[in-house]
């Protein structure tokens, strides 16, 4: 909290020189429901106080009542712009607890899905930064390619936004021919689109003047605030969970981590942009690697873990073991091993962590989500203090605040 908190002084009193402005939970410029009470002196912001929790859905309490596979739909709703990453992160946490090893092909398929989600999330963030500075065209133009990504998800899991994709040990079905065709179309057409989107903004004088020097943060402050992800990388620290603690076979791939220098909005935009190129390269590499699998290997889409992976329905009707496993999984008669595990993945906004404590029952004893948005939103006051009101809007959108991840 700032030292000049004159929100409580009565309006019109002599001492109160500033106006209290409520950048309220429902506001066209805040992307999601969170509130900022700003004290502005003219147009300069003197202090700000953030309120979150408007979309708090008690996920951690819910998770104590649900078996592992029923928690996946609630992880969707954390960062809902890149929900496959949340799902995959959760499945990997469960696999770590249960000691399940996924085959390589599953890992590569997961990488394709996670990088598509990352592209979708960064596209939304970057185009919204454009909208907030007044450039609406970029946002609508790349919408077509976000649609294509959602169509790819739909082919694989049936849903577009909150995907509930994958299972513990792999995927619910192999990617079908339409999914591959759509992916090939995406890989074919998207680079040109990203190039054009880039050209609209990166050397655009108005955009640069709006975003350079806006809301900068130094690397030390960012680390102290617990920043991770593109916001931290824009400040100059090259911490990326995919490289530091590789999961899902990321170590087999060749990609670089873009790093900025000042941590201002322009750097964040550029880092996200460059990350989209890296994600595209990762998808192409994973696609090539999957094409190299031949014969029986090419049909593998899940690990062999009958205690947690539902058997195929045809087998349930004919085979006794499949029937028993099906019953045990659905009726929740399978206990987890006791233990505590922390696993993190590189989400769209940074290190998305899952801390799972199991006491040997059906459901977790405690599940905590380490949500990057929640953690770096604390720094918002420091970022906007002293800048203009319009800068506050641009800083908010360049931080990529997703309300679902703020509140859980």
């Amino acid at each position: 909290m700032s030292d000049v908190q004159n929100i409580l002084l009565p309006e019109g009193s002599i001492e109160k020189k500033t106006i209290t402005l409520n950048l309220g939970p429902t506001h066209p410029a805040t992307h999601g429901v969170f509130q900022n009470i700003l004290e502005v002196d003219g147009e300069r912001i003197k202090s700000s106080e953030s309120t979150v929790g408007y979309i708090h859905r008690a996920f951690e309490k819910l998770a104590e009542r649900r078996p592992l596979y029923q928690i996946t739909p609630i992880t969707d709703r954390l960062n809902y712009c890149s929900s496959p990453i949340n799902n995959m992160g959760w499945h990997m946490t469960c696999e770590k607890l249960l000691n399940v090893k996924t085959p390589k092909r599953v890992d590569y398929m997961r990488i394709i899905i996670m990088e598509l989600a990352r592209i979708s999330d960064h596209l939304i963030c970057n185009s919204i930064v454009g909208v907030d500075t007044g450039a609406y065209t970029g946002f609508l133009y790349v919408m077509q390619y976000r649609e294509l990504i959602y169509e790819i998800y739909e082919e694989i899991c049936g849903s577009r936004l909150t995907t509930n994709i994958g299972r513990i040990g792999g995927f619910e079905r192999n990617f079908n021919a339409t999914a591959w065709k759509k992916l090939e179309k995406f890989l074919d057409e998207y680079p040109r689109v990203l190039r054009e989107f880039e050209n609209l903004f990166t050397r655009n004088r108005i955009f640069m003047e709006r975003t350079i020097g806006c809301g900068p943060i130094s690397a030390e402050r960012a680390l102290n605030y617990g920043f991770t992800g593109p916001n931290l990388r824009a400040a100059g620290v090259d911490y990326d969970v995919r490289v530091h603690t590789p999961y899902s076979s990321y170590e087999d791939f060749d990609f670089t981590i873009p790093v900025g220098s000042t941590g201002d909005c322009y750097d964040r935009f550029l880092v996200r942009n460059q990350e989209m190129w890296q994600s595209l390269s990762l998808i192409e590499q994973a696609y090539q690697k999957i094409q190299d699998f031949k014969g029986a290997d090419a049909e593998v889409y899940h690990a062999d873990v009958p205690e947690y992976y539902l058997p195929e329905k045809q087998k349930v009707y004919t085979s006794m073991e499949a029937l028993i496993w099906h019953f045990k999984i659905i009726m929740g008669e399978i206990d987890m091993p006791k233990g505590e595990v922390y696993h993190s993945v590189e989400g769209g906004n940074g290190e998305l962590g899952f801390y799972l404590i199991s006491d040997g029952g059906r459901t977790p004893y405690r599940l905590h989500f380490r949500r990057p948005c929640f953690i770096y939103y604390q720094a918002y006051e420091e970022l906007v203090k002293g800048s203009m009101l319009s800068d506050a809007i641009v800083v908010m959108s360049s931080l990529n605040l997703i309300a679902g991840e703020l509140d859980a």
Partner: protein
Amino acid sequence: MSLTNEQIQTKLIEKFGEQVSNFSEPYGMLTFEAPKELNLKVLQFLYDDETLKFRFLTDLQAVHYPNDKARPNDPVGWGRELAVVYHLHNLVDNVRIRFKVFTDINTPDVFTATQLYATANWMERETYDFFGVNFVGHPNLKRILNVDEMDYFPLRKEYPLEDQTRIDKDDEMFGRGGSIN
């Protein structure tokens, strides 16, 4: 030469002796506990020491163990119902550790880590909101995710998932209601 769990454990025991205890390595992450009075000293030591360098607080949250009540003969009445768990990360050597402090539920006072890590601010508010852990010295300890008027701490185990005082819905037909929720 990377930092191993044994080295971290040795350094901690060297500095704090008997007070750090219960070392274990679930799934490869070194986990230990210390008395709640020492939490800042341990965090500061882990931050300052040049080989340990745990300068990133990944996560801070609490767990409620209702069965670990205060022992009746303990002069301090020091129970272990609420655990505050810190996950720390050494970004240079890429090592993570988990540090727990236990406190009893009647006096859940734990010193705040906000002086050392600015990130602990909201994490501690969330922990206070859900479990009622009182962080001594926190600049702004009020509820963050729940409504300010809430007078109980929902993630404690004694509270069920749904608010039993609601009269506007009847979920008897869905298998909910009565004592089953």
